[in-house]
């Protein structure tokens, strides 16, 4: 049968089904294969926070969304071009996001009476014409795999479990991707269980062939490979990138690595990953609580380790007092906060940018801490290394903000050979030079790092205010002011050591967008679209939030209006307003969801249309 091939620039696909349907697996495989064929990819898993949500229900829907394209894609895509729906609930939940004319692949076996009832459908949407605006492909996947695998001695339950692989195979055909990478992966995963391997390979092939032979599916789509820098690539989540960043930073600093942490969604995976790195000599303590997580890390930092603690909002709250201790001790510490929707337990699996104020100000006393933020999953790697560099160079705790969206989303990452990464220069104090616990480097104001075990440098440090240089406990009023100012200045000095803010677009003019953290993808997409339409605006994405880049004030002064979209009620907006004493327009979405590019685009269009109408 001859089929048409159509080339597309980018496509958004979402695999949706019940929690037990294996949608995360289909999604990651599809995204890896798309990376392998050279597409730019951006993904996000979306699963219920309950471990085992009741089967077939609306709140048990699990999904995995991928946008892939022939040029850089920065988000997971706003509207779905393709929805794979394994049951009625997954159709119901996701249909509002399918674009008109989009493809829906529905597993009819998941639309029985019980499924329809659980999904609160009165009539079967596959039959009642309500999906006429879409290109609907109805396939009884369960029946097909049952037939395909009939001769294998597998339970019906197991046979059913290959549905997701069938769906994957079908989408591989639809988008002209090779099945080999997944076949290879299955081989590695099930090599010791030949029956199960065989079942999955057959399901994969059956799915592919279904598309190939289908009378209905007349068009195949293809997406050319993106023009990416040469090198090795992989898909990576923000959490894994943070974990790898810590190990890489320790390697470049020639220090052993310590992680003191306590499990908390959505940061726990960093702890998982690092726990698996034993052969790298990494020491990990799963502590009794969040406080012990950071305190053990402070102990290890005192002992001369590149030390870190990882957490999410509620855990950061618990770590606050110890963060102040690290500030006054002037010990290096990497604190990674994977933000989630708060306050309190809030929405544990949902992202938010609500911890910026807390990271900047949330401590008693004058306790400045450098704060930086990653802007994409892959960027988590570089920013973790940057946090380690600043921490050790300036002898200070550093907070790296990521969020649940970056933590779990993936994008292809060009894997830098470790030899390519710059060294992090660390020196310990020794008796060879004149020593005092709070003797400082003239340029950075960092104190010396003198660790226990160093002959002749026995000294005492602690949380009490101390005299500069000697480090002796001091209640002297003037000394306290001096120390408070030194600690503030030391953090400010970092501004000399970080890149200038990068201005995209016009050098000056009417409208400047400033973003931070994970909203980069959505803002960048909207910005690119509007500038391609000839609209005049500029964009700065901040990775350094304390201190701010030195040139930011100058950039801002060249624009009439500043627009700051955030997943909070305007925290960066407030910081910029008070730092630069000028009004800033905010856009606040606080729904536990990342921005969609069109939302930013709509806001910008409105602002551009109302020029001067502040």
């Amino acid at each position, binding site marked *: 049968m001859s089929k048409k091939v159509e080339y597309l620039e980018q496509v958004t696909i979402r695999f949706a089904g019940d929690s037990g349907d294996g949608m995360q697996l289909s999604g990651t495989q599809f995204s890896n294969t798309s990376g392998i064929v050279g597409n730019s990819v951006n993904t996000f898993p979306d699963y219920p926070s309950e471990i085992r949500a009741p089967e077939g229900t609306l709140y048990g829907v699990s999904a995995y969304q991928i946008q892939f394209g022939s040029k850089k894609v920065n988000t997971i895509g706003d509207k779905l071009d393709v929805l794979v729906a394994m049951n009625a609930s997954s159709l119901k939940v996701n249909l509002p996001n399918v674009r008109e004319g989009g493809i829906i692949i529905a597993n009819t076996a998941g639309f029985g009476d019980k499924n329809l009832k659980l999904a609160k459908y009165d009539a079967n949407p596959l039959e009642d014409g309500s999906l006429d605006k879409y290109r609907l492909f109805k396939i009884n996947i369960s029946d097909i795999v049952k037939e395909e695998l009939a001769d294998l001695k597998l339970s019906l339950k197991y046979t059913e479990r290959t549905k997701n692989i069938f769906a994957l195979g079908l989408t591989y055909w639809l988008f002209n991707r090779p099945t080999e990478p997944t076949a290879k992966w299955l081989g590695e995963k099930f090599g010791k269980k030949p029956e199960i391997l065989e079942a999955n390979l057959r399901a994969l092939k059956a799915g592919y062939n279904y598309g190939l032979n289908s009378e209905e599916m007349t068009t195949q789509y293809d997406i050319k490979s993106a023009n990416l820098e040469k090198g*090795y690539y992989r898909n990576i989540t923000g959490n894994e990138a943070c974990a790898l960043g810590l190990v890489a930073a320790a390697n470049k600093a020639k220090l052993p690595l310590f992680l003191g942490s306590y499990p908390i969604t959505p940061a726990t995976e960093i702890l998982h990953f690092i726990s698996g790195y034993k052969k790298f000599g990494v020491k990990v303590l799963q502590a009794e609580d969040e406080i012990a997580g950071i305190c053990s890390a402070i102990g290890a930092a*005192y002992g001369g380790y590149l030390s870190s603690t990882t957490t999410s909002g509620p855990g950061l709250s618990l770590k606050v007092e110890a963060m102040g201790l690290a500030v006054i001790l002037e010990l290096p510490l990497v604190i990674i906060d994977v933000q989630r929707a708060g306050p309190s337990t809030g929405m544990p699996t949902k992202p938010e940018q609500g911890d910026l104020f807390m990271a900047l100000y949330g401590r008693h006393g004058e306790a400045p801490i450098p704060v930086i933020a990653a802007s994409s999953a892959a960027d988590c790697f570089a920013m973790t290394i940057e946090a380690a560099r600043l921490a050790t160079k300036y002898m200070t705790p550093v907070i790296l903000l990521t969020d649940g969206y970056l933590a779990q989303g993936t994008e292809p990452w060009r894997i830098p050979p470790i030899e390519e990464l710059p060294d992090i220069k660390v020196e310990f104090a020794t008796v060879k030079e004149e020593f005092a616990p709070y003797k400082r480097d003239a340029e950075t104001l960092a104190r010396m790092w003198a660790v226990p075990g160093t002959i002749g440098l026995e000294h005492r440090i*602690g949380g009490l205010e101390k005299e500069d240089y000697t480090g002796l406990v001091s209640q002297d009023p003037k000394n306290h002011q001096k120390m408070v100012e030194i600690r503030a200045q030391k953090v400010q000095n970092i501004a000399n050591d970080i890149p200038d803010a990068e201005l995209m677009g016009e050098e000056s003019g009417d409208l400047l967008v400033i973003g931070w953290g994970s909203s980069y993808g959505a803002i960048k997409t909207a910005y690119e679209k509007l500038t391609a339409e000839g609209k005049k605006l500029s964009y700065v994405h901040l990775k350094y939030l304390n201190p701010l880049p030195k040139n930011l004030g100058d950039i801002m002064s060249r624009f009439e209006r500043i627009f700051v979209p955030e997943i909070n009620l305007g925290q960066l907006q407030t910081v910029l307003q008070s730092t630069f004493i000028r009004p800033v327009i905010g856009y606040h979405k606080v729904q536990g969801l990342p921005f969609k590019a069109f939302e930013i685009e709509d806001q910008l269009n409105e602002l551009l249309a109302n020029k001067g109408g502040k």
Partner: protein
Amino acid sequence: MRNILEDIVINHVSDPAGLTPKDFKNELDVRWCAGCGGYSILSQVQRIMPTLGIPKEKITFVSGIGCSSRFPYYMDVYGFHSIHGRALAIASGLKIARPDLSVWIATGDGDCMSIGGNHFIHACRRNVDLNILMFNNEIYSLTKGQYSPLSRPGQKTKTSPMGVLDDPFNPAALALGSGATFVARGYDKDPKMLQYLFERAAQHKGIAFVEIYANCVIFNDGAFDNYTEKDKRAETTVWLEHGKPLIFGTNNDKGVILDGFTPRVVSLSDGKYSANDLIVHNEHDSTLAFILANMTYNEDVPRPIGVFQAIARPSYEEKVEWQINDAITKYGEGDLNALMRGDEYWEI
């Protein structure tokens, strides 16, 4: 991978021979009240330090907050005065990172048993090789006299003008129940005893918990007189010595027997009982350690002083290193480029 910590610090060790107690004193004036139990503890620690054979630079004292937690300032070794309750969490991280160090904790009954209670039980459970000196004065002294989790029921303090309602922890039993491998009790007024207990704690591999009755002359003066004054203690306490029967009394004329699981005092002078009938202390017997610890608040029996338990179990930081070595033996030293590439990568 070579690391600079090993190159610059860990691989250089001084010779501990010839150290004297003076080497552990510094020029700072000790700022405890005259008559505070802390003084005795400090000088016994300084006295035993040179006998341990540990290079001076390897010794680190970590503390939390409270009168006792000033301790590290008065020792001329590495010292870390941290925040309230967290000394054990910090010390655990330090010791896990740096098994080459001898890590000591100076803490109090409020710091260790109240705000730091969670870290205490978990440090015991993990058996990190730390030496905990808990100054027990049954009061919050630095904040000027509120009841602590070791204050006695009925005790009148600033926050319990009509008497404490809480029941206290039994620190030895709490430590044992949390899995501590070395548990001991001493008091400020017997320097030789403290020296012995501190030496034992230092030699013990794994967590060593020493509760020390330390008199607070200002806010709870005389709280332990009944057990620590020379004219009383022979009758009110019993010294635990491994392999020896539990004999006490001014004339060594009393003993403790086990009646079922209940310790009971008997006379050794009326001919009914002899030393052979008494409990013979065994530091390696955890069940016995519990029974002895539970004698603490029992007014019918003497209060046990000495080593309740000393059992061998691999220490946590040692097991961490074993696991790392195992991983390296099994899989070879980590290749960072391979780790970063992961299982599924591609070339462009």
